[in-house]
């Protein structure tokens, strides 16, 4: 009975969220936020992958921007320099990035804790340097402009209004897929690895393989996000894929709650609005703010701001229900 009531609530919340998302880009509603919402959608895709990897499986990655950048550059170079169809380029980018994560994942994921953090950090920095240095392909530090728009038949995604729906279609697909995975046999295997690797092996879970699989999946999410980014901006440069970007993704995942799929939207939203609107005056000092947020959230609400809020609302509802039943 209680579960049924709870189930209905969840659908109501999702329906309200969807309605809100659909209305945002209209000028008479919140049209002004369309562009920032596109960035939030793209960031959410990367963050969800990181939540699966860090929150559920317990494997740290400080180099998620590497995969985000790989997706972006594969899409940019293939679709512009080699005139490959942008959709096909996006697919090739996802497959290539996934393959790269697979090859690098096997050795790197044998490391644990701080060592894994250092290795992924190194990966992120190396890729960032490569994006800047391989200038005959990537355009170097100055970047590369004139990347084509995505299109379906004659329908070209040439305005932010159109791209908003495109990005959020991908973002919601990634969220639903992740939600389904978390609640499945594989999701339990991932959480088991987080709980105890020895015990996970003892119940037949191939720990090494599951770690690599989820690493690859998070890389593919990031790659898709990168592809969407360059077809939105029509420009690519190494800047959005630097170390700070990787840190920001971790901040997003932490604010949303590492072990919370839907919290990723909240985390990405908060962090994006902070960095694109509120912290502009801080210049390079914004790093300090992110550091402070990370520390405060980890100390006072390690399960994440979003999860904490959900808990508070739940408690409030319970108290309300109790008062109702008394009278």
């Amino acid at each position: 009975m209680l579960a049924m009531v709870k189930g209905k609530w969840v659908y109501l919340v999702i329906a309200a969220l969807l309605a809100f998302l659909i209305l945002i880009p209209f000028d008479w509603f919140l049209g002004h936020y369309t562009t920032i919402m596109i960035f939030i959608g793209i960031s959410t895709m990367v963050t969800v992958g990181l939540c699966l990897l860090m929150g559920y499986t317990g494997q740290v990655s400080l180099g998620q921007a590497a995969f985000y950048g790989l997706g972006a550059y594969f899409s940019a170079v293939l679709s512009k320099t080699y005139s490959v169809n942008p959709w096909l380029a996006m697919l090739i980018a996802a497959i290539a990035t996934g393959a790269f994560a697979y090859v690098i994942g096997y050795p790197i994921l044998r490391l644990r804790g701080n060592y894994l953090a250092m290795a992924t950090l190194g990966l992120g920095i190396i890729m960032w340097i490569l994006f800047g240095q391989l200038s005959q392909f990537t355009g170097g530090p100055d970047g590369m402009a004139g990347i084509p728009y995505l299109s379906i038949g004659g329908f070209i995604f040439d305005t932010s209004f159109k791209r908003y729906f495109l990005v959020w279609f991908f973002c919601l697909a990634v969220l639903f897929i992740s939600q389904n995975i978390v609640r499945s046999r594989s999701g339990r295997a991932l959480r088991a690895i987080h709980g105890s690797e020895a015990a996970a092996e003892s119940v037949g879970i191939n720990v090494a393989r599951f770690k690599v699989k989820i690493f690859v999946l998070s890389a593919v999410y990031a790659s898709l996000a990168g592809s969407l980014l360059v077809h939105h901006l029509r420009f690519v440069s190494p800047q959005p894929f630097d170390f700070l970007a990787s840190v920001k993704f971790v901040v997003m995942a932490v604010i949303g709650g590492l072990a919370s799929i839907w919290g990723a939207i909240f985390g990405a939203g908060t962090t994006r609005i902070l960095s694109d609107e509120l912290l502009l005056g801080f210049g390079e000092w914004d790093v300090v703010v992110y550091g402070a947020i990370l520390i405060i959230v980890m100390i006072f609400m390690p399960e994440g701001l979003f999860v904490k809020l959900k808990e508070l609302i739940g408690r409030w509802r319970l108290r309300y229900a109790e008062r109702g039943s008394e009278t």
Partner: protein
Amino acid sequence: MRESILETRSLSKAFGGLVALDKVDLAIEAGTISAIIGPNGAGKTTLFNVITGVYPVSDGEILFEGKPLKSAPAHKRASLGIARTFQNVLLFGNMTVLENIMTGQHPRSHYGFLGAALRLPRAHREEETISLNAMKYLNMVGLGTFAGQNSMSLPLGQQKLLTIARALATEPRLILLDEPGAGLNTLEKRELSDLIHRIRETGISVILVEHDMPLVMGIAEWIIVLDSGQKIAEGTAAQVQKDQRVISAYLGEETD
């Protein structure tokens, strides 16, 4: 004698210069309850770890149902039918009681990321079987009413029962229990003996490492005594209790 479920031939394990297991020969009869006893540091847990593939063997071989295990990794051995529990419990603390056991069904289910992501009918069917089976094992250890609770909220005794249920959920033919009685009170120990008997009745062979002698003598049909990595005696409870080497290993030898 019936068929052996598990055999070790001249099994040795050394950590650097330290010999933890020294040419141990075992033959565990299928469908029995056996116990491995011995003083601290005798190599009992190392033996479990080598059998379950946590450590590679240094020398010798292990046969499960007559087939050599070679270098099969730990997760492979679980799907072959060897389950275990741990001395230090090792529950999945980030899951509910029921989810812990559902995770135990991992080697008996097959759908993967794709099936889950797209909610394929096959995934649905398997999930149903998994939760039904999990509930069955949970009821077998008497924790059915705690299904939805977080696993770490249970007291130690019930946590240990939960790890046994999790191991049973892998549908093993051999289960290794590492000190299942440690930290349990008298009543809980009696329930544990009952449970071990019921496990054996379902056709699963049981090997336990245990320090509680009344518990061991009460349920084990075959007792193997290890000391400093060597098998020093084996037999029924009565035989082992009379063995001079066993007595001196436990009480210390008089030297002249």
